[in-house]
């Protein structure tokens, strides 16, 4: 057991260090080879390295593969393996999407496949802990909900990745809630996986924060979203994660409702426009979707930095509500 804990600490450090160091070299490589995207919210629209999510994905896999030989418990091995396989599947989808833009429908359908490792390896318990009710057994329904959960979380995080640093910061807030639930539920093995993921995102943050030196690309945002879905399932934090995830749902759901279905980013009218002072304001086109940024901008134009702060405040508030829900569940002896 002691060896496992030491290996876990090393895996967390490995995930952090490999993300931090690999990104430094990746940014130079990406700029040299033209793997760049324009930061449209800045004056002069500078070129920024794209697809930095590759470093996050590789570092998390490296950390988990390092941990694997030290695990003795079969159940834990299965969970680690299912996280690695899900990550690989979704990363491939994101990678293809970054290289050759997939249609919104194809991308959404492909992300459903991310749930297959969890299903085939049976890395889940078919019940959900609900506030007031305790355990609700869902033997027949739960397996169908797994691919849906992975598709929803991965695409919602992808839709939230619009401003510098928003994706890693808001994801870290949701992952903190999942980690706290894992601690309270006594799922310490699953907590290790969660910490490996969080370590990689913390190392990624200095490169993506305002002004960003690298963008995660679809490979990064889809993978991080899928990991949130997988971790909420294996840590038995479905309800808490769902509430902490509410800003993502609000953003994604209203986009889908306003554009009446799945559409590729290029097909959607931009919800915000940039004025001469390089401030963002609402696009008054009635066909423009309502996103979180539209609600923040309803009282007038704002710069990117202010909007980033708004996203963080909303994510923290939802996390607070998630923790309050966890407390409610704990109070009635359900945790």
């Amino acid at each position, binding site marked *: 057991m002691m060896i496992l804990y030491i290996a876990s600490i090393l895996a967390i450090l490995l995930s952090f260090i490999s993300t931090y160091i690999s990104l430094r070299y990746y940014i130079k490589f990406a700029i040299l080879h033209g793997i760049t995207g324009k930061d449209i919210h800045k004056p002069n629209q500078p070129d920024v390295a794209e697809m930095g999510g590759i470093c996050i994905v590789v570092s998390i896999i490296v950390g988990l593969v390092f941990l694997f030989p030290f695990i003795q418990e079969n159940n834990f091995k299965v969970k680690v393996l299912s996280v690695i396989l899900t990550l690989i599947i979704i990363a491939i989808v994101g990678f293809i999407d970054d290289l050759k833009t997939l249609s919104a429908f194809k991308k959404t359908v492909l992300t459903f496949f991310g749930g297959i490792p969890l299903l085939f390896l049976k890395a889940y318990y078919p019940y959900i802990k*609900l*506030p*007031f*009710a*305790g355990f*609700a057994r*869902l*033997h*027949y*329904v739960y397996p169908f909900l797994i691919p849906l959960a992975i598709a929803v979380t991965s695409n919602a995080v992808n839709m939230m990745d619009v401003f510098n640093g928003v994706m890693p910061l808001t994801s870290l807030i949701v992952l903190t809630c999942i980690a706290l639930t894992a601690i309270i539920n006594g799922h310490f093995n699953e907590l290790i996986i969660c910490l490996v993921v969080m370590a990689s995102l913390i190392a990624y943050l200095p490169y993506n924060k305002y002004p960003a030196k690298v963008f995660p690309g679809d490979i990064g945002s889809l993978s991080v979203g899928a990991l949130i879905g997988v971790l909420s399932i294996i840590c038995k934090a479905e*309800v808490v994660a769902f*509430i902490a995830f*509410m*800003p993502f749902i*609000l953003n994604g*759901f*209203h986009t889908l*409702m306003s554009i009446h279905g799945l559409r590729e980013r290029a097909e959607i009218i931009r919800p915000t426009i940039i004025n001469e002072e390089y401030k963002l304001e*609402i696009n*008054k086109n009635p066909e423009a979707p*309502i996103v*979180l940024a*539209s*609600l*923040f*901008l*309803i*009282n007038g134009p*704002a710069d990117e930095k*202010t909007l980033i*702060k*708004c996203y963080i*405040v*909303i994510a923290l*508030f*939802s996390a607070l*509500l998630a923790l309050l*829900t966890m407390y*409610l569940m704990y109070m009635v002896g359900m945790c």
Partner: protein
Amino acid sequence: MLNRVKIVLIIIFLNWMMLILLFYIVSSMIVPLEIHGELPSAFLTGLLKVLIAVFLFTLWLYIWNLSVKTYFMKKCLKQ
């Protein structure tokens, strides 16, 4: 900045309250639901429970969407 996030905070808080209420309805009325005689198998009873829960959840999403849309349109029309 607080002025910008205020309304979103209220929307999220109201929806969280509705979600908690939904959980309460599910746990106190739908989970203990037992149908004798009418439905022969536990599978069908389970299916019925899930369908009711899905309906309530969809209703929650609908109210959420409606509240955001109404607020947004009202504010836009004022401007």
